[in-house]
């Protein structure tokens, strides 16, 4: 089994379609799909499977006044506005969580110009934004669970190649890598990690690999 996958794997898209991913992974998948037509089409195929499951269900008994009460609900609601084309760095699902575009992030320095901002963490999984100055290395690390890294600005390079805006890397326990931000533009990534792991132990060590580069 390959430990690093550059396309978003099918099991994650199917998990997103079924609605069983932790919130942090939902956020990365929704943001990635916003940037990739291929992922959007693959996701839509898994949603089609969900639609087929729904179609095949036997009908449940609904309340007698069900339709009337629904019509009453409709009266109080405004129609959904058509979505606006997005122009910033962050696609809309990420913008909703941050409360704005890249300039609205509340960063915390983690040393040598690198910054992070934790967006959600529920014990199951954590989503954070990472900001790595152009040309600088991220700390070398292994993974105790699954890690999804989505590039939003700039690019990074590691043992597997170059990742630019919209590219996603999924890494698991077998992976040990040192991503380095490409020269030019500072790199902003959205990263989701499985539960318990990793950054607690990583934070104190973070300056060392930075200095080593």
């Amino acid at each position: 089994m390959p430990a690093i996958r550059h396309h978003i794997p099918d099991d994650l898209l199917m998990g997103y379609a079924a609605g069983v991913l932790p919130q942090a992974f939902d956020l990365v998948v929704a943001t990635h799909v916003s940037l990739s037509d291929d992922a959007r089409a693959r996701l839509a195929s898994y949603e089609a499977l969900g639609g087929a499951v729904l179609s095949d269900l036997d009908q449940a008994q609904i309340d007698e006044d069900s339709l009337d009460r629904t019509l009453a609900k409709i009266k109080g609601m405004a129609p959904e506005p058509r979505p606006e084309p997005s122009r910033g760095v962050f696609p809309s699902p990420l913008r909703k969580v941050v409360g704005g575009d890249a300039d609205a992030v509340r960063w915390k320095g983690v040393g040598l110009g690198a910054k992070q901002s934790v967006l959600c963490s529920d014990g199951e999984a954590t989503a954070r934004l990472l900001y790595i100055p152009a040309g600088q290395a991220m700390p070398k690390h292994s993974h105790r669970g699954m890690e999804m890294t989505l590039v939003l600005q700039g690019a990074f390079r590691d043992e597997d190649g170059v990742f630019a805006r919209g590219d996603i890397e999924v890494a698991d326990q077998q992976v040990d890598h040192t991503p380095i931000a490409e020269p030019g533009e500072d790199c902003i990534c959205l990263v989701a990690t499985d539960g318990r792991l990793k950054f607690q132990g990583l934070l104190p060590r973070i300056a060392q690999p930075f200095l080593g580069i």
Partner: protein
Amino acid sequence: MEKTEAHWVATIAAIAQNQDQKAFAEVFRHFAPKVKAFLIKSGADVSLAEECMQDVMATLWHKAHLYDPSRASVATWIFTIARNRKIDLLRRYARPEPEDLPWGPEDAPDQADVIALQQESTKLAEAIRKLPAKQRELIERAYFGDLTHSEIAAETGLPLGTIKSRIRLALERLRHAMN
């Protein structure tokens, strides 16, 4: 009698264009009991499922003008609304959704794409019905939320590749129309 996919697409269009309450009542009679069954199988108790189903059907009314039949069947579209509402209610967070592709009312979806997607959706439904009971049950359980992410594996033997290519083509046409 089983209605065709083309019929349901026209019904949603009638809701979107004319706020047609008769059309809505027809969609409701067919889909609301299925949505409620889906929510019950996903772990909601009967009264929560009823309430949630009404929200889903009300959302359908208000989103009808955003429905794109070149990218999803009506059942698929309703499934996504129900799934999102289920996560809002049962897991208590607003589910992050991909940014939708903005397209104006003048860019009506390509009829060839719509028909092709309807054919692929029908094929997929038939393929599921032909699966061995055990495999079919596994797929259903995945969508009711009975399987964790790591237990979910991509199913083989389903014509998912062809439906994916259809959707991909529709997306490309849509992008061209926008530029």
